[in-house]
């Protein structure tokens, strides 16, 4: 329905987009005992590290090959070797995940080749899990980095089941997109387990970045899915992929192990969750538990209560494709009008967003569109705060990074319960804004009526 256009500016102003390698590193943070390693100069890593720490308020493992100018020109073999050895010896990880950056891609470092050489030279690394993903900064965006990395994890770490191996009907794989928070993952896990199924999440950011006091201080990731569990994912009866970005990994899984997959492009909203629970009921052979029947009723009631406030809102939303699709679809179903939509990278879901145009651009574009089209609700990650301030419209923070509020890791948008809470949050934001800033006075009536007769009425009908 929507036409996808790509911005033509030479200068990106107030970027919405973040780079691909840190999306990849983020995926590696969902593995247990993992150390993500960016092959690039120090800043590539340190910016990402700061970003993650500000968002999650957790210690974040992330390492760099610390490429100097000379090493960059001559090639980074030695830096990769040294980095792997240092991490292997010092932090005793269970896996090292390597992402390239713009610097090393421009030079054209053959990291796969380096890894083969390193394995030959150091027999202790011969079978040690090293996963490499090429992720140049000058291409694609955060979500693409995650997408490629999870697909690569499947290709490298999942074992092809032996022909005799019997599939475990209880075991299901879940491949969550990067738009889901650790809180979302916990919620999905609970729902799946309530059907008597045993889910394995790849990657599993819950337990890794969900806020916790660790038993021991460890320099690698804590929690997350273990490498040996990933290896057995081929024995699952189903793979559930969440978000269009996960199609690639789901297909890789099917190709390698024969496990069929079902893709849920979104899990926010009434109908997507109906579909999800019916599917779980079918594959588990169990009825939908009473708990979810009640939650469905609560969501339906929340929708009734909130549609007065959300209905008719002209929404400006800036987010990565899957999150954009997810949230804008739900709000559109609540009666909001998706009036300005900006995203970071190409995706098949963009065309299906119920709006006229989706722009691959930046927050300046979003701000201008929102201003021109009179939007009265803005959704973006924390960097959208400046635009919302200038536009003087209510601002809901969603996505990564969310550095100026607490609880980013636990924000919920999935399941009946998550959707219900999200709807309340957004509706309350609108109500508060209305009370604080939109109370009519004799003067406001006069000014609005004087300018263009009928405009006020037309706007409220949208």
């Amino acid at each position, binding site marked *: 329905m929507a036409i996808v256009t790509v911005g033509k500016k030479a200068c990106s102003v107030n970027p919405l987009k973040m780079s691909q390698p840190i999306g990849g590193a983020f995926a590696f943070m969902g593995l247990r005992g993992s150390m993500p390693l960016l092959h690039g100069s120090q800043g590539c890593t340190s910016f990402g590290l700061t970003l993650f720490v500000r968002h999650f308020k957790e210690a974040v493992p992330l*390492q760099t090959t610390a490429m*100097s100018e000379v090493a960059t020109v001559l090639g980074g073999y030695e830096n990769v070797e*040294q980095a792997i050895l240092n991490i292997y010896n010092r932090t005793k990880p269970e896996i090292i995940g390597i992402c390239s950056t713009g610097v090393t891609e421009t030079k054209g470092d053959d990291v796969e080749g380096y890894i083969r050489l390193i394995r030959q030279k150091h027999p202790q690394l011969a079978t040690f899990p090293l996963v490499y993903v090429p992720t140049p900064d000058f291409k694609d965006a955060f979500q693409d980095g995650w997408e490629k990395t999870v697909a690569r994890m499947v290709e490298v770490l999942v074992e092809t089941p032996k022909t005799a191996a019997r599939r475990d009907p209880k075991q299901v794989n879940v491949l969550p997109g990067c738009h889901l928070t650790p809180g979302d993952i916990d919620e999905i896990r609970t729902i799946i387990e309530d059907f008597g199924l045993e889910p394995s999440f790849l990657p599993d950011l819950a337990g890794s970045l969900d806020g916790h006091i660790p038993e021991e*201080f460890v*320099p690698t990731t804590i929690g997350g899915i273990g490498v040996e569990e990933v290896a057995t994912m081929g024995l699952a009866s189903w793979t559930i992929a969440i978000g269009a970005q996960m199609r690639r990994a789901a297909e890789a899984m099917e190709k390698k192990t024969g496990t069929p997959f079902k893709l849920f492009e979104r899990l926010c909203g009434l109908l997507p969750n109906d579909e999800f629970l019916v599917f779980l009921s079918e594959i588990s052979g169990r009825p939908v538990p009473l708990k979810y029947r009640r939650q469905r009723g609560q969501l339906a009631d929340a929708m009734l209560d909130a549609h007065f406030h959300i209905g008719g809102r002209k929404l400006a939303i800036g987010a990565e494709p899957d999150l954009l699709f997810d949230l804008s679809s739900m709000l559109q179903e609540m009666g909001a009008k998706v009036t300005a939509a900006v995203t970071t990278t190409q995706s098949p879901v963009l065309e299906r967003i119920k709006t006229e145009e989706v722009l691959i651009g930046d927050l300046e574009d979003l701000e201008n569109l929102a201003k021109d089209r009179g939007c009265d609700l803005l959704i973006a990650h924390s960097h959208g705060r400046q635009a919302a301030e200038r536009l003087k419209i209510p601002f809901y923070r969603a996505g990564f990074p969310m550095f100026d509020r607490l609880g980013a890791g636990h924000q919920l948008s999935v399941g009946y319960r998550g959707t219900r809470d999200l709807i309340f949050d957004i509706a309350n934001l609108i109500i508060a804004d209305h009370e604080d800033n939109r109370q009519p006075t004799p003067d406001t009536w006069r000014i609005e009526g004087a300018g263009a007769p009928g405009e006020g009425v037309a706007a409220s009908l949208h």
Partner: protein
Amino acid sequence: MSSLSATIQDVFNEPGCGKNANKSEAERKKGCTKQLQPGGAAGGCAFDGAKIALQPLTDVAHLVHGPIACEGNSWDNRGAKSSGSNIWRTGFTTDINETDVVFGGEKRLYKAVKEIIEKYDPPAVFVYQTCVPAMIGDDINAVCKAASQKFGKPVIPVNSPGFVGPKNLGNKLAGEALLEHVIGTQEPDFTTPYDLNIIGEYNLSGELWQVKPLLDELGIRIFSCISGDGKYREVAYSHRARAAMMVCSKAMINVARKMEERYGIPFFEGSFYGIEDTSDSLREIARLLIERGAPDELMARTEAVIVREEAKAWATIEPYKPRFAGKKVLLITGGVKSWSVVAALQEAGLELVGTSVKKSTKEDKERIKELMGQDAHMIDDMTPREMYKMLKDAKADIMLSGGKSQFVALKAAMPWLDINQERSHAYMGYVGMVKLVSEIDKALFNPVWEQLRRPAPWENAGKNWQAKAIAQMDAEAAELAADPEAAEKARRARKICHCKTVDLGTIEDAIAAHALTTRDGVKQHTNASGGCGACAGRIEDILAALPATAMPAVPVLQAAE
């Protein structure tokens, strides 16, 4: 790239740099290119440093030429404050793509400058070079020159690709860009004998405004601040100031020194952290201005303000002192803060068990020794586990550090306070000191600690992280006590010189083998004290103690010092 490497060499030859002054001619040529170990902890890069140093110039458009990582991952991440324009908070980047990497990004850069000038019309555009365009050979100097001429507006190249070195080098390269392209290019409307430059102050959380009222009261004009709450024009005419105060010498010493050289603006290094330091700085400002022609009566007025403000601050801090009796602080920060905050905390009656000197200069370290005594716990670089041991071993009650190490303290249920750039409170001047003290009080006495230190009722108390770490450390100590050989080994492994990584054993052996009696002798044979020189005192202590008996055993944990 030749002019960039020349600039870098020039920065390395900085005569005002304490580290440099200690090096031989040959070593100095090598510069400070000591690269971080691959797979070791990650600090920022030169681009990061340049951006940090210049971004607080508030009315300038800061355009990052590079792939999305450099700006998209990092913009709007610092809390400098502006009294006027907000354009510095806008993220501008060329966000170069694959095509640019193949065919070059100069055209895109030029167009980007054009777009910015058309849309935002800033007084100047700063263009930051990053790794990828540097590799493909984009000549930002040429593009900036062309754009400058075409649009009739300063377009300043900041040549600081990340891979040329660490953050600190980037700070200095930023300074060089100002020296080369900005400072001295405009003239002020008028000057007064009270015109002061402040260099290396970034107005984080609006800190500068805690001091500005005092300067205003004295009639001293902040002529130009490089770069906190700075405006392009002010920097451009900053060469007409009478005197300068250097706040963070680690970052911008080259700017202060070269401005003294070129324009005869004398500078001093001072701090507005802590009551006495603030007073000293005010006095020094008055002295320098009088020296350059301000009336003598300025000093008397300054003293009067100092007396009044000190009395007020002391009176406010007084009630905290009994609460702080016996409370200990571990300070993990760097540079100028490693001593300026020490003074501040001591004034409040807190005891310091250690301070980090990771980014400190020789002068910084000398000051720490002055404040904390010869055997001050100066911590160079620590792993998180070591930090925790340090917290435990020194029985510190609170840790003050930057955001990245906060979790070491917090997860150990230890009070922690952010004193680095991401902090949300301002700690400068007399009022800032009072604020710091009240924040420490809030953190120390928060009832939350008591609850958090309790294990869950169903958990074995001996199994949590703290208990395990304590048990592990006790076991190590017991092992050493039981095994004199291991104890001796641990004693000898104690690091004496951190810069050159020389341990006690090596020094003792050298003394014995060559019958050394002087510190220079030790330096010749072991290279100890060949770096920052902070360990000179410790070596002299070793020399003094040795002939009589062997050194007393040192607990192994102190090795973390």
